[in-house]
């Protein structure tokens, strides 16, 4: 088709003359690279945080909290309630017929970061004896599991890497007890790796605080959820909230996720506007440098469409390169970068890795192309609408 051939010819001419415009072209590339790098890096925080949290949630696990609790930390279940929950139908049982449920209690402990020694509040989770059956992804990678009724704890992999005093044999002080580290565990890279774990009854015994925070149970199958939930809701002695574990963690991270997204898109948006001006600058300059050439082509019969598309293609190409560079920079500098925050949707310090996912990279490149398109549109139209006679006379 004639139009396509025209477009192809003009675009190729444009691109071949690109080396002459290296300076101005660099402006689009660098400007857009900046936008994408910042956008992707900030969003990587959210992505990484979400990943760590949702890793903790398994398809076939449920979490039961006191009704009205905003989070595990703010929930308080009595011993009687907990007994009823653990016996409910729908929970998987082990070979000996015991419920695979862990009755858990939470405390916050002050630990110090390695490096600058910043003090942070870290979660100490007291768990039930069935914990390894409930959480099969939890594996002891160093030392051994704690013994019940003794002040022993195991520490998560990430906690060990980030905090002082986490080596085997080290001791941690809490209200009412001193604990010895006897093992290190991994948990599929989930948020639990930022925690310290001990026996629930021992934790409660140390500071005499009654009550439990939650019951984590493994279902017979993901489909058994409704059966379990109904059994609990229909029991008048219980006032609880039942959720799939994954949903619970997704809800917990909602707020902070939103905050990060807002920051990312506002900052990214403002930068994008700046980049659009830069792109407009570059493309207008590209067009005006070749006014005579464009006018000649138009005089020779090349259509307006070919002109517009060729300019847009050039803008898109440069934008794409910029976006790719920006995403690559974000990935290079920040992917896998470990950070910790207390604002991570759980009460204790949450350690996670910034994650530059494929989805983020795609988002970045899409933004880049949109910027390039907008920046190229007006100059493209100008190239098409240029009064030929005037341009041929232009010095």
């Amino acid at each position: 088709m004639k139009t396509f051939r025209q477009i192809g010819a003009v675009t190729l001419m444009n691109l071949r003359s690109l080396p002459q415009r290296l300076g101005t072209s660099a402006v689009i590339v660098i400007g857009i690279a900046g936008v994408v790098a910042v956008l992707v890096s900030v969003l990587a925080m959210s992505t990484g945080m979400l990943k760590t949290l949702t890793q903790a949630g398994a398809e076939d696990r449920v979490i039961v909290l006191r009704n009205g609790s905003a989070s595990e930390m703010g929930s308080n279940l009595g011993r009687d309630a907990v007994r009823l929950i653990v016996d409910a139908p729908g929970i998987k049982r082990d070979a000996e017929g015991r419920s695979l449920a862990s009755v858990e209690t939470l405390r916050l402990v002050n630990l110090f970061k390695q490096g600058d020694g910043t003090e942070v509040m870290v979660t100490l989770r007291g768990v039930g004896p069935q914990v390894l059956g409930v959480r099969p992804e939890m594996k002891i990678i160093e030392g051994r599991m704690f013994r019940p009724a003794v002040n022993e704890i195991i520490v998560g992999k990430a906690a060990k890497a980030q905090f002082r005093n986490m080596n085997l044999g080290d001791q941690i002080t809490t209200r009412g007890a001193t604990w010895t580290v006897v093992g290190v565990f991994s948990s599929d890279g989930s948020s639990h790796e930022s925690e310290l774990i001990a026996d629930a009854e021992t934790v409660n015994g140390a500071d005499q605080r009654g009550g439990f925070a939650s019951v984590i149970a493994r279902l017979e199958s993901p489909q058994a959820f409704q059966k379990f939930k109904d059994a609990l809701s229909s029991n008048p002695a219980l006032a609880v909230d039942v959720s799939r574990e994954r949903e619970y963690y997704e809800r917990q991270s909602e707020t902070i996720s939103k905050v990060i997204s807002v920051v990312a898109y506002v900052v990214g948006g403002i930068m994008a506007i700046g980049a659009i001006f830069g792109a407009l600058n570059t493309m207008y300059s590209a067009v005006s440098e070749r006014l005579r050439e464009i006018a000649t082509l138009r005089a020779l019969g090349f259509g307006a469409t070919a002109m517009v598309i060729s300019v847009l293609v050039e803008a898109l190409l440069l934008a794409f390169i910029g976006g790719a560079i920006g995403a690559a920079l974000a990935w290079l500098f920040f992917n896998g970068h470990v950070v910790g925050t207390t604002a991570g949707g759980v009460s204790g310090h949450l350690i996670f890795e910034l994650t530059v996912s494929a989805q983020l990279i795609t988002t970045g490149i899409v933004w880049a192309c949109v910027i390039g398109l907008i920046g190229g549109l007006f100059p493209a139209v100008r190239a098409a609408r240029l009064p030929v006679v005037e341009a041929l006379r232009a010095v």
Partner: protein
Amino acid sequence: MKYLPLIWAGLWRKKARTIFTMLSIVVAFLLFGLLQGINQGFNTVVQNLDVDRLYVTAKTNLTDGLPIAYASRIKAVPGVRQVSYWTYFAGYYQDSRNPIPAFATDPVALFDIYKDLKIKPEYLQAMQRTRTGVLINEQLAAKYRWKLGDRIPLGTSIWTNKDGSNTWNFDVVGTFDSSDLGGGFPGFYLNQSYFDEAAAFGRGTVHYYIVAIDDPAQATAVSQRIDALFVNSANETRTQTESALAQMQLKQIGDINFIVNAIVGAVLFTLLFLTANTMMQSVRERTGELAVLKTLGFSDGKVLSLVLIESLALCAFAAATGIALAATAFPLLKPIFGNFQMPGIVVAMGAGLALLLAFISGFAPAWRARQLNIVDALAGR
């Protein structure tokens, strides 16, 4: 400045290009003003926190709480003017999606310590008379349309009432204005005495002691005295100034400083390219004109200055606009940060950066203009 027409002529040679470049600079400095402003704002707010207020928490972790009996012992410490406390109640209104960060306290002492809180004395008196009374900040009251005399039920997932329920009933006896202290300041207070009476467990424990001291210079000394009182007991304390506490909390959220500086750095770096390119293009196009100026007798140095001043005019004007825009956004942040203005240091930083930008992007083109050989330039070489 008699050379103004020349500088003007240089800037507006290509209207579109100058406008786009200026807009980019405005946007960049708007972002700089906002981000760095918030960042420095945090630092300022934290530093300005009263050094005549100390916070005492349990050494093992604040959530472990301290016995209420400590109150009189702390008050007796030399240098202490007043002592109040907060016990975190954590309620919700109607539904756990409406969390109400409520605190049990000794309201008279509390309002004596926080002089920035504005309240009518009769409300405080009513609070003392009414066991189930609550004082609510005006923003929160407006949000849920609570009025004086209303009876409000709060649900809680932690504290069971002695009657076995999750629900606590409160009577609104007064409102107060905490806008000077920002949106994060606790806005719902109940009487500790009611809490102690009605709670099934957790009685007699508070989470924070807030201590007003006579002389800010004595802050460290008084802190040490307080901690010494309880050392080696079952409930050891840690006392720090409000400022130190705030800094600690801020630090735990993340290295905001680094993030802001990284973003601002990226923005300014990309901007540098744009501006440098614009200046370079501009000078290249005006080779002939610059040669003419030299012909007319403008010295090499004058021509260099002209280009640099052009760059400066461009950057300074646009940067000032960007920062001014950012400054206008600050009052809008009052609900979150309290009394918050763009810190002066940010304006100074912005000015410095604008100068740097102007100089770096303008130098190469200015030098090029300076070195122009008249004869070659006129001949088109």
